[in-house]
């Protein structure tokens, strides 16, 4: 095989292929001495496409984290600040930020209003970056909460079996029965008016916690069900039997014996979960039930921008591009992580 490749591949590619082949050989030779995490990391490093998209995601995160710096030092405004009657000098000419008939200025390609303004005269670039922070924050937090809930649901249902399993599984089935977006929109609409009150805890309808919790809850079955299946298999394994024989209780067995064996699955799920959460948040924001105005998110910026697609296409297109780039980067990177941990796995999340 190597001989044939030598004959047809150009020099650079040939070297890379040879190097990969050598590593694969080395991996096969030393696999017994390498831990699964290190092995996965090594496979992931070799997946250059996944690593490339991982870097894209990191860059997007860094850009969004730099929002306050851009706002303060470059754009000299905040994400919520209206500039309806203000003017800006572009190429030596003073222009209205919003014209008298309500049309906002387009991209100036300079510090102030770099990507133009919206109908309230707010700086689109600043809102884009702050919107990204909100979208990422919601995506990551929702994915974390989903993970915690799904792991507990999977562990309890799979380990306890019987009545506990039936109650948890049927509850998850109820959520599963609804299309994700429809359920999230219904919850978002209902909770946005009155907020949420759980005992002494009260969450206002405008709080970012509302979309976070909604997204977290609707995705729990998608992660909990495969985890439950794994737990059902793991609880029959010898090492669990051994722990039980040593007198370990159910909680200890779940936490110290079973949970570590679920960790690779959880790691594989997480980036995909974040990508889906960001996408769902954008859908909710687009429909006005995600991050509440005037706080920006990519979803609600697209929703607002669509209304002005004729005179200000950038208002919808730019946040759309950011959203696509982020979700694409996370999905490709997530696929890479999955391949690295278990190339035969068929983990898939519905969009």
């Amino acid at each position, binding site marked *: 095989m190597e001989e044939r490749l030598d004959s047809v591949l150009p020099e650079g590619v040939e070297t890379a292929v040879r190097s990969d082949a050598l590593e694969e050989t080395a991996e096969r030779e030393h696999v017994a001495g390498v831990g699964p995490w290190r092995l996965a990391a090594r496979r992931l490093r070799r997946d250059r496409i996944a690593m490339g998209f991982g870097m894209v995601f990191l860059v997007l995160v860094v850009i969004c984290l730099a929002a306050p710096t851009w706002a303060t030092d470059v754009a000299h405004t905040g994400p*919520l*600040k*209206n500039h*309806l*009657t203000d003017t800006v000098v572009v190429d030596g000419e003073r222009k209205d930020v*919003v*014209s*008298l*008939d*309500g*049309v906002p200025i387009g991209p100036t390609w300079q510090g102030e209003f770099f990507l133009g303004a919206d*109908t*309230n*005269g707010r700086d689109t670039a600043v809102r884009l970056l702050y919107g990204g922070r909100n979208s990422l924050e919601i995506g990551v937090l929702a994915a974390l909460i989903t993970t915690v809930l799904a792991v507990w649901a999977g562990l309890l249902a799979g380990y306890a079996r019987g009545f506990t399993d039936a109650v948890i599984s049927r509850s998850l089935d109820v959520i599963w029965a609804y299309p994700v977006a429809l359920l999230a929109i219904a919850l978002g609409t209902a909770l946005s*008016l009155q907020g949420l009150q759980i005992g002494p805890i009260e969450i206002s*309808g*405008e709080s970012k916690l509302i979309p976070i919790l909604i997204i977290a809850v609707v995705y729990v079955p998608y992660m909990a069900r495969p985890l439950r299946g794994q737990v059902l298999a793991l609880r029959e394994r010898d090492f669990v039997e051994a722990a039980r024989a040593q007198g370990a209780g159910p909680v200890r067995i779940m936490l110290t014996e079973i949970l570590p064996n679920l960790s690779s699955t959880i790691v594989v799920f997480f980036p995909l979960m974040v990508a889906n959460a960001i996408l769902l948040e954008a859908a909710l924001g687009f429909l*006005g039930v995600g991050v*509440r*105005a*005037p706080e920006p998110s990519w979803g609600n910026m697209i929703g607002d921008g*669509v*209304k*002005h*697609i*004729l*005179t*200000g296409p950038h208002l919808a297109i730019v946040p759309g591009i950011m959203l696509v780039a982020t979700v694409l980067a996370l999905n490709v990177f997530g696929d890479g992580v999955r391949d690295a941990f278990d190339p035969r796995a068929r983990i898939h999340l519905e969009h």
Partner: protein
Amino acid sequence: MGKLGRRGAVLLVALSVFDVAACGGGDDDGGGGARDTGGEIAIGSVGPDSADPVLIQSLQAVQPFQMVYTPLVTYAHQEGNAGTEIIPALAEEVPEPTNGGRTYTFRLREGLEYSDGSPVKASDFENTIKRLLKLGSPWSGFYTGIQGATEFTERGNFKADIAGIEANDRTGEIEVTLTEPNTQILFALAQPYAAPTPAAKSPARGLKQPPPGVGPYTLEVVDFNREWVLERNRRFRDIPGIPKGNFDRIKIAVSDNVTRMTQDVISGKLDFMTEDPAGDQLPEVRAQYPERLREAASPANVYYFFLNVTLPPFDKQEAREAVNYAIDSNALVRIFGGRLDPGCTMLPPSVTGYEEFDCKYGDPAAGPNLERARQLVEQSGYEGEEVTVWTNNKDPRPAIADYLRDVLGEIGFDADVKTLDQQVYIEQVGLRRTKAQTGFTNWYQDYPHPADFFEPTLSSEALESEVTFNQGFVSDSRIDKTLDELRGEDPEAVAERWGDLDEYVVNEKAFVVPYGYEESTSFFSERMDAENCAGIHPVWKNDWLLFCKKAS
């Protein structure tokens, strides 16, 4: 009627008056070829807010309901000022008041019947007024001047009688006696929510389907949030002055997506829209379809922010004045896409009593006085106070509320925005328990009388209904006293006093923050005759009975 850009009426502004009778009858050739009558048209709308005629609040509801529910008297189906004339409808004639201006006696025309075939009875009218009062309709305040109405409401017994209404089913005579002379009562009785409906089908509870009416069309709710249908009432008998309409069927496509609605009118999927093209679509429509867009007339209206005087921080006059000083009408003009005439009065320029008094807070067309506003907020002791600005999701209202939020932040409050769906917004902010501090509101004239801009929006009487249009919960003895004094007077004769009341409300007490008067539009599809049959009406904004297609 007012509320939220929806209900409306106009009076004034020099509207070009067309020969609308031509369209109304549906049998005119318009000077060109023959009119294409019959068939179906589709109208886009954010939708009526109730299926029950006594509970409707929005202009989007009044427009179809006036085609179904014919009152004792009604407004002339004419464009321009002619449309403010009261003409007889179910009654044989418009009565002259007797008993010192306190009693009005109507006599029903003979042979009237509802769309279900049942005869119209005089007692059905009393049943309608009882429903308005019993169900807590926001319009109930218009009828509390009828003798015994207040007692009926207090007693709460639907079977009880209203002393001031004597209805004789045999003779068809209806005698309405007021507690005191009131020059507005005929205007109030001309509203579709005061029209008789069969008592047997109009119980003391809200209705899910519109009951039968006498008008030229029947109305059916196919899906409350998607589709309503008006169909020709085959039992409608000729009533002088009431057109039969030019279409057999009118579909109302309900949607809160004004952008899509505008696209659908452009493409011809819809023939008309009750809303104004939003965002950058208006410049496009103006440029590309000028012959399909009518901008010549504006119903009398005022746009303002309400300030809840029962809650901090607007329970202090300094805080209320601060907002008035800080608002920049020029900013709001941009949000309206240029369709706002800046102003600082509650009475629009076209209404009797309007006077261009010196705005204490500066020329509305000039910039704001933020420095003074900050000082006042500091003086009020409410610096840093949390304020929620309420609005609804119909464009451009979210943008208006965000502007107010930004301004409140600049002058020292900690402001946020709460956005509700436009179909529940009026009801929510009109409930005392909602505790809305401030927010978007507007008022479109219900009838051509200056009292209509104060009684529902700023009087103590308006607070008696569960859902009030007095969203600031203003209860001021001077306003109430003035309204009592002017109620029986000819508005023209006391125009100056109406102007004084306006100045008191805005300049002296800063109960509200008026910022301008909207110039609305009427946008039609290619096949509709926008030039001759736009039906621009001073009370209903557009009279759909006057719509017609282009001559073929």
